[in-house]
């Protein structure tokens, strides 16, 4: 069975500074990993996905994440935060090539300080 842990429920950064949202996963098989974002009163939008290809994955809006098997991590980063990045971010795991349910982390709310 798989699981996912988002280590911070809230993260605050100043505009223009780097963003780091942490995610650790557990999976018995080769995992697929995703980051989704939810802006207020909006649906969940896919930011990026890892599916056993390149370990450094680039997503939309300047976000990227690196799959590190040795650390079982898939942290989300962005070099320079923008006010519009304020939202809730979800790390998601599923097991590749298995018809299994997709598991969400508890979410990290990102606050951008002016």
């Amino acid at each position, binding site marked *: 069975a798989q699981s996912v842990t988002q280590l911070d429920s809230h993260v605050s950064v100043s505009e223009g500074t780097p963003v780091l949202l942490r995610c650790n996963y557990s999976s018995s098989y080769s995992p*697929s990993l*995703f980051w*989704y974002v939810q802006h207020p*009163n*909006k*649906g*969940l*939008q*896919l930011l990026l*996905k890892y*599916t*056993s290809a390149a370990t450094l994955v680039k997503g939309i809006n300047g976000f990227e994440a690196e799959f590190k098997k040795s650390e079982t991590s898939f942290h989300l980063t962005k070099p320079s935060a923008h006010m519009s990045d304020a939202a809730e971010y*979800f790390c998601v795991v*599923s097991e*590749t*090539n298995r*018809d299994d*349910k*997709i*598991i*969400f*982390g*508890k*979410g990290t709310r990102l606050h951008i300080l002016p």
Partner: protein
Amino acid sequence: EAGVTQFPSHSVIEKGQTVTLRCDPISGHDNLYWYRRVMGKEIKFLLHFVKESKQDESGMPNNRFLAERTGGTYSTLKVQPAELEDSGVYFCASSPGFSGANVLTFGAGSRLTVL
């Protein structure tokens, strides 16, 4: 292409009443999922349809919840009778098929408030 559409966006009902949520997936997507987020907690899986069949309904909380997907197109999720703890946001998602890494496209969610 049109995205996943959910209706209503917000429903306010009294305890004991019935509510039906609807999800229209992306056309041609065989997989349809329902998820729920209650009171700011994590998003939890409810069930998964493959076409019109329930592939996995292990996340359904109790028998007050009934999901259907007649004809393998849109899906409904009925809560009858609704209880206070059913309040939350119900998300629907769809994906094109069992292709290894299914990427889900989510709807905007239906917010349910039970008074």
